[in-house]
């Protein structure tokens, strides 16, 4: 191992980590910005941003990327101060921080290309430096002091105290709810988790503190939890929602303001920033995560495939032992276990390829922010993601589609603020994206806006067709290839642009569904349903017996021209098994069967012109087909139903004609042929 190789490896890991933390910083900054708009502080997001920058600085220092260290250091300093002073940031500060993140991103991207990271501009550094000076801490004069045990107060982080004080100042009620877990309560469905969930519905949870209490009938475990809440609901409403007795709740806002000495609030230390209980949850979900190149997963899958092939050979060997009268019962049992293990292993590998939908959605806010600025539209983004996971390959194909729909919505569908006001709509447009697993196998994603809606008649006129009577008809129009988009963009809020590509990706490539619902003047919703997993392979398509098929490229040894004159005919059987010809290929005799015969298809009048050669156990077998059509990436969908599981058929795909096309496994097919032959006491 040389030093340089070592460093390279290190840089690769650095780039991955840095990108991850930059994504977090972006997301959190946007969260701060949107909270700010509603006049609220988001101390947690400030902390998260601080942590990301802190990590980026540390990593960059390790690999010696000084320009990034310089930028991150300044941002980190400012964020630490902001955190201490309650997590409020001015818009100008947010802008500067986003600029800083972008500057780091550019440098990380440069490193990824193999370039060096440029020194940051003096202007940027100065802007970041001046942030610290401009940010005068809001210095809140606590309008109320918290009525909490000192021991408990010391456990609160300054931003939590701040949050409570602000909440009280804003007219919310600060409450302390105590919950002691016990087996009886658990039997009623009351656990700390369910209480937490219920509390979140009626209040903001500021902090949940566990504490030791004397063992009693009420708290058999000697443990109780104190929930500090901010709520606008009455005491009864809160205890009702929580399912607890009123005695467990009391207000912690004191009537008489009495400023606590500064020292009673624990000073923020970095250790605490890293260890605060609640904030930790977010980072923990990222910890213990390994990022792996998809090709490595493919390798694993490949290895598994060879295992399956080996298993097949083993099964045959056992079968022949059994035939010779050997007792193979134990072996058969082992084989059954083996089958199950292989199945589990495959499921495990498939699971590894799944990524959370949130990863797909967390890039949207930044996109919308950029569009907002570029188009001068006022847009509020509502994101509703779930915890669903989908195949990396699906996620990668889905993202450009979402970008496209979002861009269309902000660019064209949502009116300018003036226009909206004239139409009696709120000045701010609404863009809503929801995402969730609908079934075990499909994900539903909607992109909706409250903009102009699509003028069916105008789109129809543009396309030179009759005006569609329903949404399905409209979608067909929008997806007409090459529908001139520019005019439509300006006259009808333009949904034509690239919808064809959206449809191709969702319906043809991913095998999903696409729907549109548009109310003229009211808004438009696109609904996408895609399978959670797909598998894409490079495949040859060909025609045989008037039917189209595909075969994965990896399975094909070669494709050869068939010269009828150079074929050696093997005498035909009368047992109905396919006839076999011998094809001479570089001096090797290759047995060739007519695929149309094997599959009992209507034979076409023409003689087969091409043959696909595959190898089974090292020996070539040729399948004659009518003609080759091309090579393309196809999505293979499994044929799970027993009704259509047949030898040599491994799945189905869609070549764009809306009809399924069979994906063939010619290696398996040749195996089934040869075993049939063997059963007849013949061989190739």
């Amino acid at each position: 191992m040389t030093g340089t190789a070592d460093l390279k490896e290190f840089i690769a890991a650095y780039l991955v980590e840095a990108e991850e933390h930059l994504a977090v910083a972006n997301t959190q900054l946007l969260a701060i910005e949107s909270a700010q708009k509603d006049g609220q502080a988001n101390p947690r997001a400030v902390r998260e941003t601080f942590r990301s920058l802190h990590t980026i600085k540390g990593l960059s220092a390790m690999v010696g990327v000084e320009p990034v260290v310089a930028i991150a250091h300044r941002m980190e300093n400012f964020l630490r101060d902001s955190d201490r002073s309650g997590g409020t940031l001015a818009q100008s500060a947010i802008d500067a921080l986003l600029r800083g993140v972008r500057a780091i991103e550019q440098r990380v991207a440069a490193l990824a290309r193999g370039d060096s990271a440029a020194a940051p501009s003096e202007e940027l550094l100065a802007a970041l430096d001046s942030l610290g000076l401009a940010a005068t801490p809001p210095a809140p004069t606590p309008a109320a002091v918290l009525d909490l045990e000192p021991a408990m107060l010391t456990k609160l982080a300054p931003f939590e105290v701040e949050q409570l004080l602000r909440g009280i100042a804003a007219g919310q009620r600060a409450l302390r709810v105590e919950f002691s877990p016990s087996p009886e309560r658990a039997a009623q469905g009351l656990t700390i988790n369910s209480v937490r969930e219920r509390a979140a519905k009626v209040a903001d949870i500021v902090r949940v503190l566990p504490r030791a209490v004397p063992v009693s009938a009420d708290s058999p475990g000697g443990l109780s939890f104190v929930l500090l809440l901010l709520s606008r609901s009455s005491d009864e409403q809160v205890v009702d929602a929580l399912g607890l007795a009123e005695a467990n709740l009391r207000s912690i806002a004191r009537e008489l303001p009495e400023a606590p000495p500064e020292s009673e609030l624990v000073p923020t230390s970095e250790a605490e920033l890293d260890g605060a209980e609640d904030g930790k949850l977010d980072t923990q979900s990222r910890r213990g995560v390994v990022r792996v190149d998809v090709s490595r997963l493919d390798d694993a899958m490949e290895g598994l495939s060879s295992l399956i092939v080996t298993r097949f050979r083993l099964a045959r060997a056992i079968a022949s032992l059994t035939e010779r009268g050997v007792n193979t019962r134990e072996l058969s049992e082992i084989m059954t276990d083996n089958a199950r293990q292989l199945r589990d292993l495959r499921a495990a590998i498939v699971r590894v390829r799944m990524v959370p939908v949130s990863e797909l959605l967390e890039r949207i806010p930044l996109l919308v922010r950029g569009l907002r600025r570029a188009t001068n539209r006022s847009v509020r983004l509502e994101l509703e993601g779930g915890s669903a996971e989908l195949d990396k390959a699906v996620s990668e194909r889905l993202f450009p589609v979402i970008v496209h729909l979002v861009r269309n919505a902000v660019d064209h569908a949502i009116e300018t603020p003036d226009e909206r006001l004239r139409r009696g709509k709120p000045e701010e447009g609404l863009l809503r994206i929801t995402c969730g697993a609908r079934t075990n196998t499909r994900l539903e994603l909607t992109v909706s806006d409250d903009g102009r809606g699509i003028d069916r008649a105008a789109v129809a006129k543009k396309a030179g067709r009759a005006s569609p009577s329903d949404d399905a008809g409209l979608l067909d129009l929008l997806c007409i290839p090459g529908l001139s988009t520019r005019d439509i963009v300006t006259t009808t809020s333009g949904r034509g642009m690239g919808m064809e590509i959206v449809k191709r990706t969702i319906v043809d490539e991913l095998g999903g569904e696409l729907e549109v619902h548009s109310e003229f003047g009211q808004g438009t919703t696109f609904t996408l349903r895609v399978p959670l997993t797909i598998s894409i392979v490079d495949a040859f398509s060909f025609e045989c017996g008037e039917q189209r098929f595909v075969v994965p490229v990896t399975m094909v040894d070669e494709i050869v021209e068939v010269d009828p004159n150079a074929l050696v005919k093997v005498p035909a059987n009368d047992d109905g098994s396919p006839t076999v010809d011998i094809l001479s290929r570089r001096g090797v005799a290759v047995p060739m069967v007519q695929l149309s015969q094997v599959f009992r298809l209507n034979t076409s009048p023409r003689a087969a012109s091409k043959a696909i050669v595959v190898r089974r156990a090292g020996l070539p077998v040729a399948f004659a087909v009518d003609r080759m059509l091309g090579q393309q990436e196809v999505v293979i969908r499994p044929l799970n139903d027993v009704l259509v599981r047949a030898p040599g058929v491994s799945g189905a795909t869609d070549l764009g004609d809306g009809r399924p096309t069979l994906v063939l496994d010619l290696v398996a097919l040749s195996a089934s042929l040869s075993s049939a032959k063997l059963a007849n006491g013949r061989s190739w």
Partner: protein
Amino acid sequence: MKLHVVFTLAGAEYALPFDSVLQMESYTGATLVPGAPAYVDGIVTVRGMVLPVLDLRTRFGLPRAELSLDTRIVVTESAARVVALRVDSAREVLKLDVEKHQPAPSIVSERSSGLVNAVHPLGKRLLLLIDLPKLLGENSHDLQPRALPADDGSSKRPQLPS
């Protein structure tokens, strides 16, 4: 009272509980699957799902019919299996009183290999009720079981049948 989908097959009327029917679609033919049982027309794509089409006429031993404008597939679901049934026509959804189901006469039940498990008189009409779990469940034994499920395609390499 329970909603039922009514369809026709060789002049007789059949019914399936509405909640076991996902949808009804017109039908213009399927992609042939070589090696599949004779009563399987092939596969079709319905709303993104690739489904086998079971020709109910052939399954019930009735003569095959040409495709017509009335030909429909009734997409059914039973025990997580989704299968499209090819029928002559499907036009009606009726509320039937389940209490009025009667056991199928033995001749009907025998002729249909037990796949028609009840009848429902409705005025002058007689609806035959199909035992869907049996219809779909039965097929799982028709083909030899495989040691491993069909490849979901994630693997680039072939998977050999055992």
